[in-house]
């Protein structure tokens, strides 16, 4: 997807309607904090860690 300028993982999650308390995010293959800035071309993986059962 296309991302805005000066964005971060936290802002991306907000945009996707995902609560940061429920996921672990990695950027370009390494786990990163939500304050990490993002640039066009970065690969972001969002792992949903909250599950029932």
């Amino acid at each position, binding site marked *: 997807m296309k991302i805005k300028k000066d964005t971060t993982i936290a802002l991306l999650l907000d945009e996707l309607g995902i609560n940061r*308390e429920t996921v672990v995010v990695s950027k370009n293959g390494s786990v990163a904090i939500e*304050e990490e800035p993002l640039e066009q071309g970065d690969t972001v993986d969002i792992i*949903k*860690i909250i599950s029932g059962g």
Partner: protein
Amino acid sequence: MRCDNCDGAPVYNRRYSGQKFCHDHFTEYFERKVKKTINDSGMIKRGERIGVALSGGKDSITLLSILNKMEDIELFAIAVDEGIKGYREKSLHVAKKFCKETDISLEIISFKNSFGVTVDETKDHACSFCGVLRRRLLNDRAKELGLDKLATGHNLDDETQAIMINYIRGDPERLLRLSNSTHSDKFVPRIKPLQEMPEKEVGLYAVLNFNIDFSECPYAGDSFRTGIRDFINTLERDNPGIKFSIKRGYEKLTPYLESYPTKELKECPLCGEPTSGEVCKVCDMLQSTKMFINDNKNRRE
């Protein structure tokens, strides 16, 4: 951005304390805090035989792995196969693999063999059936093995959800039962070493240290608990630390809850286990589920 303790790249921003951690320092912090929870509360004593309820999910694998680093305790992993097709096979595979690699004894007990029924056969009330029967099965096995304690992977989120649910339902007896397991020689005491760890931290620890399958149980859908979970997570996102605040508030209340009159326990006429009603929940659910299955069978025949 850097880790607060070294030059490493941060993997976690603990917003409720304003600290950033790299992979190694996060792992160190996490393990230290779990051990501190165990030591401060005297949950586990030297030489004890500890059962660990292992599902193969992030919580129980994390729990077992940290307990395995403690000296002077004997560990027995017990996994329950509730009979949930397409879901439990995967997590049991993780459980088996983990125990093999760490040389921890693992026993798998199934609903089918013990009760003759699987969760898949129950249809609508899967979760309450599943929870009640699993609890009984684990307790029975822990008693047979002569274990001192039964450890479960409940994390801070599980605790705060249970607290809120019981507040909202106005159920002081259940609220009290969250913190002290029923006093009876029929129950192996339960301990929850991860109760001070937010689910996000447990998830992160598991992502960093193990190869976990994060898929969700098909029955975990939209229950009341899911609504409470989302509500608390929204509060936490906007007010970091609120989960601890819910738990601390609850802990301040428990001494007063202890004076709440609890129902006298009787023996279930069918299985002999303690119950506050006529027939215990396990026997009640088994009866109605088997009736439901037979009805369906008869209709088909």
